[in-house]
C-alpha cells in the first residue's frame, strides 16, 4: 500500500513534468516511476497513509499561508539590515528545543526556520536545534524556544504527529 502510494506520487510528478497525454509518454512514465520506486522506495520520507486525512490537509493549507507571510517578513527584515549604513546585526548561535518527533515534521520545521526572519538552522542533535540568529535577543533556551519555534510547532504538531 505504502509503495503503491509512492508510485502514484512519482507518476503524478512525471505527468506534470511532461504535460502531455500521448501514450508513449504515459508508458515511459510508468516504467520510470516503477524504477525509481524500486531503487529509492526505502528512503522515501512520506510516512505511510497517515498524512492523507482531510484535517491534516486543512492544517497544511493554514501552514502554507503562515509560512508565506513569515517569508515575506523575513525578506523585508533582511532588506532593512542590508541597506542600513551601520549594519544593525548582533549575530550568535542559540539552542532551542523541539517537541516534534517525526522526521518529516522536523525537516519541515528546520526548513521553515531557515526561511523566516533572521534565523537559520545550523544543526540538530537529539531534541535540540542549533540556530544562527542574526539579532540575538536573549541567551536563554526557554525564551528562544518561545520566540523562534513555538508558532510553527503548534501547526506542525497537528499535521505530522
Amino acid at each position, binding site marked *: 500500500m505504502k509503495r503503491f502510494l509512492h508510485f502514484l506520487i512519482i507518476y503524478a510528478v512525471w505527468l506534470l513534468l511532461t504535460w502531455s497525454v500521448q501514450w508513449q509518454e504515459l508508458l515511459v512514465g510508468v516504467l520510470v516511476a516503477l524504477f525509481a520506486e524500486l531503487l529509492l522506495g526505502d528512503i522515501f520520507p512520506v510516512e505511510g497513509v497517515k498524512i492523507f486525512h482531510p484535517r491534516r490537509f486543512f492544517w497544511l493549507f493554514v501552514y502554507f499561508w503562515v509560512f508565506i507571510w513569515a517569508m515575506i517578513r523575513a525578506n523585508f527584515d533582511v532588506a532593512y539590515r542590508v*541597506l542600513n549604513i551601520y549594519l544593525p546585526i*548582533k549575530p550568535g548561535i542559540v*539552542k532551542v528545543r523541539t517537541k516534534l518527533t517525526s522526521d518529516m515534521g522536523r525537516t519541515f520545521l528546520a526548513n521553515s526556520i531557515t526561511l523566516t526572519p533572521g534565523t537559520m538552522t545550523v544543526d540538530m542533535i537529539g531534541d535540540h536545534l542549533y540556530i544562527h540568529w542574526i539579532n540575538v535577543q536573549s541567551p536563554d533556551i526557554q525564551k528562544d524556544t518561545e520566540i523562534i519555534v513555538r508558532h510553527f510547532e503548534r501547526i506542525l504538531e497537528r499535521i505530522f504527529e
Partner: protein
Amino acid sequence: MSETIGYILLTVGIAFDVLGCIGLVRLPDVYNRLQAGTKCVTLGTAAILLSVLFFTGFNAISVKALLCIWFILITSPTAAHAISRAAHRSGIRLWKGSVLDRYAEDREGAEDKQ
C-alpha cells in the same frame, strides 16, 4: 491585467535578488551571508517563477515553473543548512562581534568527553 501582475511580481523578485546579493557582498561572515543570500534569493527567484504563470497563462511552461518553485523551496534551505554545518565543523569561527555560540560550546564539551 495579468501582464501587469506579472510585471509587479518580476519587479519584486528582482529587487529581492539584488538585495540578497548586496547582503552577500556587505555582511561580515559566512553565516550572515548565508542568511541574507538564502532568504532573499529564494523568495526572489520564486517570485520570478510565479510571474511566468501570469505572463504565459496556464500551460506546460507555467506548470513546470510551479514545480520549480516547489523544488527551490525544498532544496535551498537544505543546502544552506548543509553548508553552514560544514563551515562550522571545518573550523570557521563566527564574526568577532557575535554575542554567543552555543554550538561551539556544546561541541567542545562533547569532544572533551571522548
